[in-house]
């Protein structure tokens, strides 16, 4: 437990009927740090993230945010606790502009005779500032988001998270569908998010991406957290051996499994 832990999860377990998806996971998530979750499909990383996002109720364990125990029973609870999740399929509305997407659901309004009018200029200005801070360039922010590239959409989704005052941003495979140059830009966005003091949790299958951007890595296997490494203390080979189950320390476990 460190001073800058934003979220502490202890003993998190999740059963689906008789199936154990997650067992006894402890994890600290720190401000200003990019934490990567790795593991094969079905290893439990997505289930864990969904617990944090309020999409799954854990069967066991406790979660504390800034030292206070919290119950993340719904996505609304998670949002209220400052947790924003950016899903793989990016929940953006393709037909709306950048600013409209960033503000959708909590627009800035000015009431005239009780009728709420959008403060369009103010919303556009604020989104411009956020995009500048992220060093993300969108040449035509008034165009529908459907016309943007995958990387630009990631930037819009991150802006939305920041605008919701998210202090923990969870990203599920943010670079999965991107070309090389776009991937670079999104990884840079992830770093900048952490530099702003945000805690970032990243799910990725791409070891190279993870080593480029993450400060810490956690490997899941069969619903358990089997390894946690600082980037400086490990190398891709070791992480891959954890993911595949080939690491020597796992041999005994595999027998039991």
């Amino acid at each position, binding site marked *: 437990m460190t001073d800058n832990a934003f979220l502490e999860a202890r003993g998190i377990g999740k059963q689906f009927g008789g199936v154990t998806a997650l067992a006894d996971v402890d994890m600290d998530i720190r401000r200003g740090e990019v934490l990567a979750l790795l593991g094969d499909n079905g290893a439990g990383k997505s289930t864990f993230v969904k617990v944090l996002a309020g999409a799954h109720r854990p069967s066991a364990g406790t979660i504390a945010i800034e030292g206070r125990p919290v119950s993340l029973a719904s996505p609304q609870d998670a949002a209220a606790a400052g947790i924003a999740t950016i899903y793989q399929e990016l929940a953006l*509305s393709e037909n*709306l502009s950048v600013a409209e997407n960033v503000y959708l*659901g909590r627009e800035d309004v000015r009431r005239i005779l009780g009728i709420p009018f959008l403060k369009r200029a103010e919303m556009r200005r604020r989104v411009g500032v956020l995009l500048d801070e992220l060093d993300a360039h969108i040449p*035509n922010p008034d165009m529908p988001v459907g*016309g943007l590239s995958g990387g*630009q959409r990631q930037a819009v989704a991150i802006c939305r998270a920041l605008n919701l005052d998210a202090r923990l941003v969870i990203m599920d495979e943010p670079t999965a569908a991107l070309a090389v140059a776009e991937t670079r830009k999104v990884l840079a966005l992830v770093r900048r998010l952490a530099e702003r003091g945000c805690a970032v949790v990243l799910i990725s299958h791409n070891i190279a991406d993870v080593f480029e951007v993450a400060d810490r890595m956690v490997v899941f296997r069969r619903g358990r957290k089997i390894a946690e490494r600082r980037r400086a203390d490990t190398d891709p080979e070791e992480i891959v051996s954890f993911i595949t189950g080939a690491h020597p320390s796992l041999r005994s476990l595999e027998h039991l499994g």
Partner: protein
Amino acid sequence: MGARIAGSIGGRELTLLVAGLVAMAIFAVLSPVYLSAGNLYQVVRNSVELLVVGLGLTFVLAIGGIDVSVGMVLGIAAIAIGNLLLAGADPWVAALAGPLVGAALGAFTGAVIVFGRIPAIVATIGLLGVYRTAIFALLGGSWLSGLPSSLSDIFAARIGGFLPASYIVILAAYLAAFVVLRRTPFGLHLLAVGNAEERARLAGVAVRRVRLAAYVVSGTLCGLAATFYIANYRNVEMTVGSTVALDAIAAVVLGGTSILGGRASLLGTALGVLLIRVLQNGFTIVGLPSLWQPVVTGVLLLAALSLERLAASGGVRRLAFGAP
């Protein structure tokens, strides 16, 4: 904003305007009476109710909904207004009753769709049957006729000496619809729901309330259209509103509002209404039996839908959105 307005006016609306003018030019060549002031006034006068219904239907299509019962809502509201006038009610009260009855029926339609979880097309076909029967029952097998002219007098009154009051009401309805669609969170939510309901819900949009509200708006405007209808015709026949749904849906889709939701153009709807009325009027003048009018409208609707398909499948979309 500038680019946005230019982008949305550029394509479809301009095409409609040009198509309308070309059609008028052809009709003018074919018939000497076509361009007479009397005939053109007739076109505008025939467009009034359809325009008001079309504005409301634009909201319904924006959320990815549909309502084929709009003509019947207009009919029931018209009967309510007519009966109030016959009973000697104040014309202002009668005028207000139209939108009120429309709003109530719109709320009912919306509730059936949203809370009954019934696809809008099926629900409104069912309601079309219910409302139509209600019209027969309310009229009791005969026309509602001999209505006093008090309502017509209000709408015919010239504000400032030359502008008929009815124009002001239509302009106000159009501007209000525009402001709601483009300048309020509700407008944004309509388009988000029409694009992808689940995404809108994830973003915190109250999806069910937005969908319900779209039908209330549409119903209210059907009721307002009924007020114009009574002021214009001063009677209600048995077949009231029977071609309204086809004409209105065709006009809205022609105007560039997506039948799949997520995209709406009120100016497009207005131009679509005018184009349909120009064609119907022109074909009648050059001697096409009026029985054929629904064919003209139906063909226009199908053409607009194929155009939308084409756009969705690639080619045109890239042109419309520009390169990423």
